[in-house]
């Protein structure tokens, strides 16, 4: 059995270790099992006790070779696998894949199916953000907002379970439409949930968002200036919190998003610097509010008595080498699918680019000089989930 060598930090393995011993720093592992790294991620932390010199993320513990599986499955058959790319916001992964293949096929998705997709996706966005802000508050130490967020998420889970039968990995979208139509009475249930939820958002803000200690922990923490966010290709609420007002739903509209009126919250540095962790938190809370707006409009505008599946060939075969790129606004940012069609019924290559992957890339640069408690807050504010990073 070959002994495992320590991964290099500076490509000079033993020299780095020797230097660390001389300075008296400790080399610690934070993870891979740790209560507050969001998923199975390891951090190699060089610290003198409280202040970190470097924190290097090590990922790959949750690598399930989904991209290789995509080369083996049929186009329809890969849909459940996309759920697992980000199991907290699974609808978006479904939609990205569906849109990429529909682009390759040149399919037109019926209007009602698009509205169903939007309703499902926005509900999922709310539930994903609830998990994100809840765990972020819990990592900072306030345990109570987490059950509050999960309590609201239970309502959404019930709604989505009624819609597609699953609470977490939905497999609801299909190439060319959606799998199931909205059940009867669904619009009223979603409306009453929204009425209740918007008040809860205000309570949430009263409880934790503007709490003095919470602000002290998060304001001015790891501010990411806009150009740096663009350079490292951050996406989603992370990018918008840094002041870059880019949302795929507004700037490259897809599906039926042009039909809706909604705002895109952009970080303003309300209690600290623009792009600090509190801004990222606040962006997510405000996005939930905007999702409620979109949902109300979608429920009002959805066409009745229409079909939910387009005309899809029984076996999807595409010319070899055809490639398509789809971009959607997932809960964690700009999720992009690059699909190259293969000779038979499978894809030749599937590449999924997720927001969390690039967010991990920025942690090394941001973490110099932070304290360990701050590293936890930083990871939570970037809303990384391990399945998205590793796929």
């Amino acid at each position: 059995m070959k002994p495992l060598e320590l991964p290099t930090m500076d490509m000079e393995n033993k020299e780095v270790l020797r230097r660390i011993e001389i300075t008296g720093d400790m080399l610690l592992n934070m993870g891979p099992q740790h209560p507050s790294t969001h998923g199975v991620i390891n951090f190699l932390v060089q610290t003198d006790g409280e202040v970190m010199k470097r924190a290097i993320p090590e990922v790959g513990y949750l690598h399930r070779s989904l991209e290789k599986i995509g080369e083996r499955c049929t186009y329809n058959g890969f849909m459940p696998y996309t759920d697992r790319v980000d199991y907290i916001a699974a609808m978006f992964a479904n939609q990205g894949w569906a849109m990429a293949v529909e682009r390759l096929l040149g399919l037109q998705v019926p209007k009602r199916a698009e509205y169903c997709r939007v309703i499902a996706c926005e509900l999922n966005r709310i539930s994903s953000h609830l998990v994100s802000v809840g765990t972020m508050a819990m990592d900072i130490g306030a345990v109570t907002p987490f059950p509050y967020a999960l309590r609201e998420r239970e309502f959404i889970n019930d709604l989505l379970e009624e819609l597609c039968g699953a609470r977490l990995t939905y497999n609801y979208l299909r190439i060319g439409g959606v799998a199931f139509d909205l059940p009867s009475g669904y619009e009223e249930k979603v409306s009453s949930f929204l009425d209740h939820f918007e008040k809860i958002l205000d309570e949430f803000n009263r409880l934790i968002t503007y709490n003095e200690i919470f602000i002290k922990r998060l304001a001015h923490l790891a501010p990411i200036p806009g150009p740096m966010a663009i350079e490292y290709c951050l996406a989603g609420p992370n990018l918008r919190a840094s002041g870059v007002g880019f949302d795929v739903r507004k700037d490259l509209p897809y599906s039926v998003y042009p039909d809706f009126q909604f705002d895109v919250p952009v970080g303003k540095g309300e209690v600290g610097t623009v792009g600090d962790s509190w801004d990222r938190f606040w962006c997510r809370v405000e996005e939930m509010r905007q999702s409620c707006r979109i949902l109300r409009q979608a429920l009002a505008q959805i066409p009745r008595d229409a079909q939910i599946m387009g005309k899809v060939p029984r076996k999807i075969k595409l010319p070899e080498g055809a490639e398509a790129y789809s971009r959607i606004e997932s809960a964690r940012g700009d999720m992009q699918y690059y699909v190259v069609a293969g000779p038979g019924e499978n894809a030749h290559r599937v590449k999924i680019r997720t927001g969390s992957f690039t967010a991990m890339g920025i942690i090394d640069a941001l973490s110099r000089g932070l304290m360990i408690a701050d590293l936890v807050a930083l990871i939570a504010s970037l809303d990384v989930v391990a399945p998205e990073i590793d796929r």
Partner: protein
Amino acid sequence: MTFEEIQQRLAAKLGERIGALSPANKDPFLVVQAADLVAVCRLLKDDPDLAFDCLMNLSTVDWPKKNQIEVVYHLWSYPKRHSFILKVQLDRAGPEVPSVEPVWKSANWLEREQFDLMGVQFNGHPDLRRIMMPDDWVGHPLRKDYKEEAQWHNITTTRENSLEGYVRLDELAKKAAEAAAKKEVPS
């Protein structure tokens, strides 16, 4: 700017090194030589009308039939809100391409991932090591001709077919019965 305009802009600045846009099979792309890659990328980033400040995606595609590995760069410009696709075609035996990490920092992790999974060497990358697979993994999993090793640190990568046990028992019973039958005949 459309893809054609961008390609014309590039051709104007860099002349012969820029070829034609390949025809759209859903998305047109521009094939660049590996040696010109960094120059093209810098131009794409620094030119004020092009302003591609974001490398959205870096993927590699393995074409064993053409004996090529393609590296695909998807670029996006936040100021101008346009996108572009670059491709570099490399020899499958020794795929090497200059790293664009000096141009876009997001390439750091994206290139590491492709090095790990496809085996493409990115020359000039500050920290090229495996990212998904363990550091002492052998082979590049996303290649079409990738064969897993039988074991990694004494963990086998294959599993016995659980039905084999039953078949073997059946055969054992059959063999025992035949042996018993043979024994009886001579004696």
